[in-house]
């Protein structure tokens, strides 16, 4: 049995969020990018929606500033639960780094397979660079490239399912545009990514498999409409590889509502449809994410 390590990242994230709650001064209000352009934080720690990253960088720092955020997220599904915590930071709206720690609880799967471990932990580290454009102020979209390194810490079950590696990397190119007064006089957010990956269930079930053990290109889309400065509704789609014959993998969908009461806080709630996840079909459930920016 693996000895559980101290949970550094969740603790750091919780400490930062508590600091934000307590501190009147140190916060995002003095940063210059306008409200909600920080975006939320994905399950992999990247600035974006819930499951699909965007070309925006985390926090509210404009091109002479820095900024970042801490977040905690939770996904509840019929047969799985996923808890995530992490931090990210951006510099001069040019480069960003992020770290996220995920913990998937899979008790029903353990019973079905008659194995002892009931959870899988994974760490995701990301670097993102804005290549060109501005989300709002240029005629072309903001375009960024991101690279994610993922390390699965509990490879026993993924390996039994046929995964080849316990670590891997994703590369993605993202284009995002906020069209002011784009639809019904509301600001319209459009985003499209291509990702080069061989991760199974974003890496929680390892990397590569018996059907396919090489990277492939997949597509991701998200769109949202700002009802006003504080409320955004939208949806996401994430295409997934299908590397394991034992457990077919579905594409992911979400429909979300995001609330940005201030530059310091944001809260996202979503309905998620993850399809079939490791022999359990119809994994539809709820997602919630709290983000604090500094």
């Amino acid at each position, binding site marked *: 049995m693996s000895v559980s390590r101290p949970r550094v990242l969740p603790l750091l994230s919780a400490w930062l969020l508590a600091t934000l709650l307590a501190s009147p001064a140190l916060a995002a209000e003095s940063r210059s990018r306008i409200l909600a352009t920080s975006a939320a934080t994905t399950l992999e720690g990247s600035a974006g929606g819930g499951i699909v990253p965007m070309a925006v960088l985390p926090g509210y720092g*404009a091109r002479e500033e820095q900024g970042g955020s801490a977040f905690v997220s939770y996904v509840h599904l019929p047969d799985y639960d996923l808890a995530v915590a992490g931090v990210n930071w951006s510099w001069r709206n040019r480069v960003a780094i992020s770290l996220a720690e995920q913990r998937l609880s899979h008790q029903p799967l353990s019973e079905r397979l008659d194995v002892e471990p009931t959870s899988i932990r994974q760490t995701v580290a990301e670097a993102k660079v804005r290549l060109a454009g501005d989300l709002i102020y240029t005629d072309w979209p903001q375009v960024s490239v991101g690279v994610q390194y993922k390390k699965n810490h509990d490879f026993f079950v993924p390996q039994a399912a046929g995964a080849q590696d316990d670590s891997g990397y994703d590369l993605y190119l993202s284009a995002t545009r906020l069209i002011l007064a*784009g639809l019904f006089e509301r600001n319209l957010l459009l985003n499209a990514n291509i990702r080069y990956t061989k991760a199974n269930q974003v890496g929680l079930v390892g990397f590569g498999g018996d059907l396919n053990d090489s990277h492939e290109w997949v597509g991701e889309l998200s769109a949202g409409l700002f009802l006003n400065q504080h409320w955004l509704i939208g949806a996401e789609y994430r295409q997934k590889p299908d590397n394991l014959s034992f457990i077919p993998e579905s594409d992911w969908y979400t429909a979300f509502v995001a609330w940005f009461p201030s530059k310091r806080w944001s809260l996202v709630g979503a309905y998620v449809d993850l399809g079939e996840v490791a022999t359990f079909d119809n994994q539809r459930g709820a997602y919630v994410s709290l983000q604090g920016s500094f």
Partner: protein
Amino acid sequence: MKRLTQGVVAVLALGLVACTSLPGGEDSLYQRLGGEAGIEGIVYELLVEIANDERIVERFRELNIARFQQGLETYLCSVTGGPCQYTGDSMRIVHSGHNFTDSEFNALVENLITAMNRRDVDTGTQNRLLAILARDYKDVVYL
């Protein structure tokens, strides 16, 4: 893959709708901002915001505020289809030599939004004005 295609089509369709509904009919935007009095009110609130914003207030320290106020009111009136003709220098000429930054531009936009909120300008009207002014970004920053 089929669902991805559907998704791409949906996003492209949204984009098309978006383009066709970009600020046309800018004549009525002036009215929706409350005409001359409305614009004067917004500019006044904007000046108050700037005066209290340490990120950018230094940039306006040496300025003839009355002239700036007048110029900005006329500019807003003219770009929203009001009965004014802005005869000052172009945005690029007015702002070049100052090396205004991306951060300062964002700060000013934020102040403008606050000013419009103070004057109870509705979301749609705010968005349409911001859409027009956002086009000036390239004629304001890093010049």
